[in-house]
């Protein structure tokens, strides 16, 4: 008889959804702070929309600054699914107009998790997998 695979022990965490409306009117500083506060609370954040490229580097920079200063924090795993980067030029123009009105590229979803919980986010054009640490 085949041995049952143990799922191992996963320490507590939660998944938090953040609608873009919650960060739409925040400045870059406040946005990053809000996101990092959620992640530092051992939450996997699912953000509607996506950050600007400059905000993403800011998020990486601030994350690096926190490693070593916040106990047990080892960084984040980050992935963006969908959005303007994928699709035809015509579709992108259409999306671009819609996003200009709504802000934040609503066709995208951003996943950010603490590296202590999320081991890896495997992404390819067809699927996304969250590999958790045991």
């Amino acid at each position, binding site marked *: 008889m085949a041995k049952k695979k143990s799922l191992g022990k996963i320490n507590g965490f939660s998944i938090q959804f953040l609608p873009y409306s919650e960060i739409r009117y925040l400045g870059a500083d406040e946005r990053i702070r809000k996101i990092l506060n959620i992640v530092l609370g051992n939450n996997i954040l699912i953000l509607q929309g996506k950050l*600007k*490229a*400059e905000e*993403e*580097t800011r998020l*990486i*920079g601030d*994350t*690096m*600054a926190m*490693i*070593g200063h916040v106990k047990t924090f*080892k*960084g*984040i*795993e*980050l*992935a*963006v699914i969908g959005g303007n*980067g994928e699709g035809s030029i015509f579709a992108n123009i259409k999306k671009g107009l819609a996003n200009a009105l709504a802000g934040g590229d609503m066709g995208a979803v951003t996943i950010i998790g603490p*590296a202590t919980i999320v081991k890896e*986010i*495997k*992404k*390819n*054009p067809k699927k996304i997998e969250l590999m958790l640490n045991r």
Partner: protein
Amino acid sequence: MAIKVIKNFFKKIFSSIFKQKGEIKLGFYGPPNAGKTSLANRICKDFTGEEIGSVSKIPHETRNVQFKEKVEIEYKGRKMMFKMIDTPGIATKIDYEEFLKYKMGKKESKKRAKEATQGVVESIKWLDDMDVVVIVLDATANPYNQVNITIIGNLVARKIPVLIVANKIDVKKADVKKVEAAFPDYEVVGISAKYGKNLEEFYESIFKLSKKVK
């Protein structure tokens, strides 16, 4: 915001006045262990006889931005002067325990991790100062890594010409087509920095991109 715009305006004016004639700032960016320093070393060694930095199997070997000035690349009778800028690998996480696997002591690992986090911040800061950027990716790894997309997004926002290099084509697992499929809007050149494979195509692309800067 207005102060930043004015600051950038004066920065551009001063840098154009004092910029060494014809020297193009060529940055090497990418995730850790993709072969940025190996490629920069290969070019520097070929044209100056000296290397830019040390390489290692242990991630985050480059933890400070390294330069080599006045590197004159000669290709098919054409010459161009570059300032080579090799940057630390950009990552979203750094765990000192990863370094313990390489038989590194705890104290040394912690020190390396701390320096690596500072290196990432330094790399990001330098993005503004580049004329042309080579994104060095490991062709054996998944190209759909958000760090790669973030770096390219930042370069596009800054209107900096980008060349993507799919390194390690000497390794059986390497998949240049996968890298091309991940970045269909960019030129991708498959190379082996370790063995100097396909560097002609790389130089051709660099010359082509650098013309956009002048």
